[in-house]
């Protein structure tokens, strides 16, 4: 069974009385524990696809099934519960609440769950946050304010936050877009590690090196998935070059 099954998904915006079809009958399936990249030129509908399939934006038509549940027909509150308990989000900009420390930002979604309402539950969330921060190597910035840490550290904190409720899938919108090369590598390593631990990842990027870390890459153009390539599960850094070359050839073939 697929984690996420998208059928005939359409998204239309009306701007200045003109209809703009951003997504046109998109069909895709993401399997459990799969890491899928979405690439495409600017304005092709990558981010809209991510927002629509994650339930952050409504679909104009079509169906999005998440573990068999239809997200398109869900009420806002039900959708919030799913986002809180079963989904994680990483954005290009490191969005966090400015008045909280890095640590408090990480535990913020955790404290909103039923588990986070009890003293014992909060203790467990705190333990989980500490382990996550340690794994991602940001324990030392826990008590810092968000304006006191680097972009790479902050993005890793965002990944920690997306993981705090043990989601089934992480949606990442250009997660390395605002980072330098070294930070990008580190962040992608973390996402790979998370994926290998069993969490599915749907990642939107325009960076070929980032996309090459994915198991499968979709190419979207004019709101429709034009093609896809399966690179297979990444086993280590040694094969990165080959994956990048394969992806590059495929993209050139698509006119990238």
């Amino acid at each position: 069974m697929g984690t996420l099954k998208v059928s005939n998904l359409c998204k239309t915006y009306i701007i200045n009385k003109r209809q703009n079809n951003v997504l046109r009958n998109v069909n895709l399936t993401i399997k459990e524990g799969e890491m899928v990249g979405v690439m495409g030129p600017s304005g092709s509908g990558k981010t809209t696809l991510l927002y629509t399939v994650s339930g952050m934006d409504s679909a104009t038509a079509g169906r999005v099934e998440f573990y068999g549940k239809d997200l398109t027909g869900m009420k806002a509150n039900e959708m919030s519960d799913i986002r809180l308990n079963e989904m994680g989000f990483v954005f290009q900009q490191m969005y966090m609440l400015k008045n909280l420390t890095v640590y408090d930002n990480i535990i913020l979604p955790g404290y909103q769950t039923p588990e986070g309402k009890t003293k014992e539950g909060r203790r467990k969330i705190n333990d989980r946050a500490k382990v996550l921060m340690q794994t991602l190597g940001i324990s030392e910035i826990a008590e810092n304010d968000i304006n006191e840490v680097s972009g790479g550290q902050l993005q890793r904190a965002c990944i920690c936050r997306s993981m705090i409720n043990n989601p089934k899938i992480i949606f990442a919108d250009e997660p390395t877009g605002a980072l330098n090369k070294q930070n990008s590598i580190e962040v992608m390593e973390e996402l790979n590690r998370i994926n290998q631990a069993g969490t599915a990842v749907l990642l939107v990027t325009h960076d070929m090196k980032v996309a090459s870390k994915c198991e499968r890459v979709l190419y979207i153009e004019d709101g429709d998935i034009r093609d896809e390539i399966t690179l297979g599960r990444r086993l280590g850094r040694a094969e990165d070059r080959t994956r990048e070359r394969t992806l590059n050839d495929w993209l050139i073939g698509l006119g990238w």
Partner: protein
Amino acid sequence: MIQRILKKDMKRRKSVNIILFLFITIASIFLSSSINNILVVTSAVEYYMDYAKVPDINFIVSGTQEKEVIDDWIEHESPNLKSWGYNTVMSVNEKDIKIHREKKDSAFKSNGVTTYIGTMNAEYCKVYDMDGRDFTLKQGEAAIGYGIAEDNKLSEGDQIRISAAGGVNKIFTIKYLVKDAAFGSEMAGMSRIMLSEEDYKDYSEKNESNLQGLYYVNTGDQNTFIREYNDQEFTSALNMITRQTYTMAYSFDMIMAALLILIGICLILIALLVLRFTLVFTLEEEYREIGIMKAVGLKEFAIKKIYLVKYFFIVTAGSAVGLAASIPVSQMMVKGVSRNMIMEDTSANFWVNIICTFLIIALVMLFCYGCTRKLNKISAISAIRGGQSGERFHRRSVLKMHKCKRMPVAVFLGLNDMASHLKRYLVLMVTFCLSFILITIPLNTLNTMQSEEMAEKFCMNPDSSVYIETIEKPGEEPYKTIKDLKAGMNRVEKELKEKGYDAKLTAVPIYFLRFYEEEQGGKNHIMTVQILGENNDFLTYLEGEAPTLENEIAISRAILEQNDWQIGDTVEVGLTNGTKKMLITGTYSDYMQLGKSARMNPEIDLSSEIMFQYWNIMADVKTDLTQQELADKMEKLFPDYKWTTAQEVVDRNVGGIQENLKSMLVPMTGMLCAVIMLITLLMERLFIAREKGEIAMMKSMGYKNRTICLWQVLRMVWVALVSMIAAVPLSFVSNQFILKPIFAIMGAEVEIQVVPWQVYGLYPGVLLVGIILATVIAAVKVKQINIRELNNLE
């Protein structure tokens, strides 16, 4: 381009702009009308006194026996005399006046003030009709003060019957309701019914003993005149009232105006604070655009102009609407004052409003310009970075969520926001705090007026069972000596006993005695009270002790200070049988004669002195009933006497301000609530606009709208609670520096009474509900924020 930016901005910030516009409108209305009111009220009393020809000095003598001697002294010997006049009035027992309707007589209420009949044959202390015009009365016609007519529900055309000794009994048609500058104020303690010369003659010829002579004197040197008048030792001399005292009797009209001014000032202060917040907030929010404009070479003033033009439009439009609305509001306010006074031509008011409007526009624009100075300090690149220089950061988080073991996230976020950005919430805190303090003013005033101390300040024991205003039987002349008074009291006690009430009566006779100062040889007529009865130990003293021995006296602090007397000094008191040396044993402050009085010991026999009048008689009887219940019961059992409660006496003596305050309380709370709600709405909308990205981010994490709204509401609740806590000590300051001086105008300091459940519970609670309601209304906007707004996050 400016036009385009402006148009876009006006559309984008529609609700905030509308709220700001409304706020400027409200502030304009209040400022224009309250300033108008200040100008009107300050000049009105003085104008009214001049218009009604209230003299510098008005002294009252008992009867007409000494008329020739006094006339002669004034004409030939009095110092610096400019002009003078004389006429008489005749005191009438309340029971001898009846309202005559459909051939039936009903009771006339004098509300505790002595009622006189008189004529308009003097050129002083004149009365006018409600439009301020002079008038004449024919036989059978009467004119009655507006206040007393209103209390008795009398209007022009109604009839009253006045009977007096000698069989004079006439029915009069009320021809005019009048404004009486000297005796019209309830605080004056006197009211006049004006009759025609012929009718008055019929009464006065047969009741000479009830006549009182009124002398009106204008002099170049008031103090010298008073001193020399006192030196004359006229035996019939009673009270002396100066023009200042008459003016002071209208002080509570000023108090109401003062309260409105205070509210107006607070509103302007709040308006400027809100404006500053809005402007700075907008600038900070648009830093990037400003940075880009700076980067492409726009000059600073050109950028400022965008904001200044926008606020100029809003302020001008708001002020213009405010101006239009302020005119009827001003007229309404002035009408309230003019009910008691004759006022100058009010056509000038319109100009006051226009000037105020221009001043508001100038002030606000100047203030706006000051606020935009922030743009000078910031470079193009700093602005593009959203105001951060990239070098200096300050810590934002104050509280730690993970350390709060059980606190719900929404509660924590609200508290943390406030703690992290105290400066940002300062405007709201100041506004809330001012509102909480403002609401305490009328509440504390009311509660103070209802306190036992107030009754005591009016020389009444608040613990007495009930009070009797007058005990003369219908047709009986007002008592002139304590011998008559005692006889009357004995009679009432006997009547009460017959009906099963073993009551003890205590009276407070009032005299105007001559006081000599031993060393300086000066003389004063001072109102002197003596407690006549067993209930004589309820009065309190600031210093020293109550006079107990025959040669002891206590004198009010105002008199001591005026004469440079001290406790332990000896003063000579002029009595009919010669002077008597008396030792000052204590001092006090109360509201009798505006704080200028003396308290005689209960031992000395003053039966030979002419009693000016007697104060409410206290009746002590064993009962479980409240004063009001007993007064109602006694009124039925003994309808010949006027039964009352301590509170009613206090109310009457402070000129009915309590009723005004009571009626003002709900509108004032409503108005404050509306202002607070408007500001909260404005601020909350701005907060949400600024936090759009954060809200979207929280939504993306799975936070529901309900939780986010709760966060916003709780943040406001925290701010309101902090403001409420801050308002507690500040309200003590306002009690000390606003209310105490207001009460002191009447002659004495009083402890301001605070009823905690009202001042710290009910009324702030109402405002808190308003704040929550406004936040909830504003927080509806949260629902409209799409997660795509994440792009708006800094």
